């Protein structure tokens, strides 16, 4: 169906608006869009300065007026087809701009509110015995590191071995079933993973169980498919020549994989694992269900409640004590810390892939 629509419609559409109509029509000079944009921006700015100034309405208003303006102008000078083209260009570009507004707004809000308490005490004190101001999230940061570390410890070997199976060994029905189920696993909502971990531990430890390692299991369920997918992609990129060369030298398959295939794709796999960690480290819902929260330090994931950074931020924000402000400040600082961790992990992943990947010699 695609072939016919792509094949026939162009000819139908193109034939009608004859060449002469295009040639006869004048076209707008190259600087026209910029001029319209500047005029619109100036007009909106003047109006705003006379009334109230707001960055968001300034941008949105400018974009809307520009879209209308460039369409009207082009319509009168260049005709319908070019006007539509310019209209879509403007709409698509503003859509991209619209997507950046929340990104900027989130960063500005979190940084602005989080800087308040971004001090040494926040990173070195727990909340034990703290009422009101002071205290910090040391216990929550340690909890997040322990839970995420354990999750990585479970899901990285599992995910990598599964990917190796799928790429190097997997044939037939089992492999396609696993591929399908990994896809399904990608779509498990995080809260359901938390409920699964709770249900699993409740069967063995009784109802009401709260444990750090349970959070790790939940995160591992979320992380494994991401590791499988990225490792799989990377293993597929390893040229078959390398494998064949190794086989030709009489090297067993497992040594070929360990000594040739994995080292070649290591940078990519490390990038994927880092991104997977970045994805689960900010998960709140499963930890809310199974790891719970506490005000004091707990370094033992197999015993009792364990505070984590996102859960700490959540509780500080939705059920603050009296006075409210210190709690809200801590919540924002925890959010800022979390965003910093995630950004560092993301940048680290990019760095790993740019520094180490050219090893394939291509």
């Amino acid at each position, binding site marked *: 169906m695609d072939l016919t629509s792509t094949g026939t419609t162009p000819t139908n559409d193109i034939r009608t608006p004859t060449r002469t109509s295009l040639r006869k029509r004048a076209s707008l000079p190259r600087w026209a869009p910029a001029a319209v944009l500047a005029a619109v921006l100036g007009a909106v700015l003047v109006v705003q300065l006379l009334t109230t100034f707001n960055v968001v309405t300034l941008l949105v208003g400018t974009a809307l007026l520009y879209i209308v303006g460039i369409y009207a102008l082009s319509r009168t000078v260049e005709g319908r087809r070019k006007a539509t083209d310019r209209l879509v260009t403007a709409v698509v570009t503003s859509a991209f701009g619209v997507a950046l507004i929340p990104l900027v707004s989130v960063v500005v809000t979190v940084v602005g509110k989080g800087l308040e308490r971004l001090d040494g005490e926040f990173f070195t004190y727990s909340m034990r015995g703290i009422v009101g101001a002071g205290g910090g999230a040391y216990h929550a940061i340690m909890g997040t590191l322990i839970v995420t570390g354990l999750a990585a410890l479970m899901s990285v070997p599992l995910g990598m071995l599964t990917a190796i199976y799928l790429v190097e060994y*997997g044939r037939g029905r089992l492999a396609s079933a696993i591929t399908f189920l990994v896809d399904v696993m990608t779509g498990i909502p995080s809260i359901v993973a938390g409920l699964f971990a709770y249900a699993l531990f409740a069967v063995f430890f009784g109802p009401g169980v709260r444990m750090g390692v349970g959070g790790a299991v939940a995160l591992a369920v979320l992380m494994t498919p991401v590791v499988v997918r990225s490792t799989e992609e990377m293993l597929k990129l390893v040229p078959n020549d390398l494998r064949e060369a190794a086989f030709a030298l009489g090297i067993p398959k497992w040594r070929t994989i360990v000594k040739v295939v994995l080292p070649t794709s290591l940078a990519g796999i490390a990038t994927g694992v880092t991104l997977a960690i970045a994805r689960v480290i900010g998960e709140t819902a499963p930890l809310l269900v199974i790891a719970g929260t506490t005000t004091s330090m707990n370094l033992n994931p197999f015993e009792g409640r364990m505070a984590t950074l*996102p859960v700490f931020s959540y509780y500080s924000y939705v059920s603050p004590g009296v006075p409210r402000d210190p709690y809200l400040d801590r919540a924002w600082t925890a959010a800022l810390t979390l965003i910093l961790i995630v950004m560092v992990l993301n940048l680290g992943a990019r760095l790993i892939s740019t520094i180490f990947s050219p090893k394939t010699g291509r």
Partner: protein
Amino acid sequence: MSSPSTPTVTAPRKQAGRNGVQRPGDRLFSGAARGSGLLILVILAGVAIFLITEAWPAITAPADAIPGGEGLAAYVAPLVFGTVLAATIALVVATPLAIAIALFITHYAPKRMAQGLGYLVDLLAAVPSIIYGLWGFQVVAPASVPVARWLEENLGFIPLFAGPTSSTGRTMLVAGVVLAIMILPIISAVCREVFIQTPRLNQEAALALGATRWEMIRMTVLPFGRSGIISAAMLGLGRALGETMAVAIVLSVSGGITLNLIGSGNPSTIAANIALQFPESSGIAVNTLIASGLVLFVITLAVNMSARWIVKRANRSGDGR
């Protein structure tokens, strides 16, 4: 048996068989790899089994034991409604925006900048959901109040905007918009991949026939990517259905089924309800929540599977192209 580190000359000759020589190392390694694959199956089965085990007491319990006192179905129904409503709003807002962004990155932005811009949009996906929740509560909700007032005054005849406007802004509309922002990067990433794969020749042919850039996109890129767009939207829908924290923080919940998007009485969503109720629940209430989680699991599973199915079907028909 030859040691793996010193492959003998005879080994290659033996490997003439279809599967080659099976050394102990090989057997161990392939066994471990296959075992991991099987473990994935076991885990997924485990998720279903343990959820059912823990949900069972609530499924079999008498109606008046369930919180709310009217049985499981009556407890879950408004939650399902809220979940679907929030996800629908998110999808309606996010899909056109995501398609436009994907088009911008693949066909409008300067080639050299395209990758960086794509990375910028992907950053939206890196922000943890709890932060979207705080941001939605702090920034979007207050900012939405005047907009909601305007909607009530001018479009109040539509049931969706009937009002009265919530004074806090913690409405279904805001929850949906925040969800839309969260699923935007996933939808646009999938769309981007599909749009890039549009056959170059088709595009150039359209341009050569005198099509403007938009006409070229409408005639080649969009028809080619249609199934990709649909599956991207479904993947986004699956994500929106299961999203927890943002809704739990943003939405002001008070029960009933209502289509009013800007009022203060909103139905909760399954995921948000679990997050809000679970820490303080015990006994049968916990089982009820797990049962509702099971419902969510089934819904997202169905949505995701159909998305994959559409992709698969499209790929297969793509081969014959």
